[in-house]
């Protein structure tokens, strides 16, 4: 299952509960305000680093660019809209919205 998170990691606990629930190996896709978690040096970056040991983690390029996020946690895979569609086609989705 593809788990998707679109809310800010510091204003909701959506990322935290999603990562607690998602079984090892399942892909995590961050989009909209969810992409803020990938900012290197931020508090949620520690959650992402831990998640990368258990899951592939993707972040949507258009949302990163919109928010001026320049320094990403290493290992996060940046994908465009086609990549987003590819992931959704390949998996059933758990929208953790």
């Amino acid at each position, binding site marked *: 299952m593809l788990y998707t998170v679109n809310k800010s990691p*510091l204003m909701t606990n959506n990322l935290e509960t999603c990562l607690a629930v998602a079984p090892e190996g399942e892909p995590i896709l961050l989009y909209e305000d969810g992409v*803020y978690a990938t900012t290197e040096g931020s508090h949620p970056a520690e959650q992402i680093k831990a998640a990368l040991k258990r899951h592939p983690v993707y972040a949507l390029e258009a949302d990163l*660019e*919109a928010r001026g996020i320049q320094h990403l946690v290493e290992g996060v895979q940046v994908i465009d809209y086609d990549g987003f569609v590819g992931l959704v086609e390949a998996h059933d989705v758990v929208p953790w919205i």
Partner: protein
Amino acid sequence: MKKAAVLMRKAPYGSVYTAEGFRAVMGIGIFEMDVVLTFVDDGVYALVKNQDPEKLDMQALGEGFPMLPEFGVNGFYVHQPSLEARGLSPEDLVMDVQLVDDAGLAELLAEYKTVLPF
């Protein structure tokens, strides 16, 4: 002179709050009020450099804030703990701001009394 502090706490593109706050501040300018902007929690993201929401078909918000002094805004205050939690420093922002801690923010809001939340 009437005083008001605008309290920005939301990220810029996930909701309309930041854009509406910006619009409201431009309007307040004509009333000759003493207005300051405060950026707390995800509100600090509004001031980050290099925002490019073109692929979202949205207007960039960050670059607009430095022109607000022309609309009567007398101060820009950023909550430093919020900035640090997000891996950001003052150099990452589109303009010079004054940093405040928890107590400093509370004092500012108490001084201005009227708080407009966005």
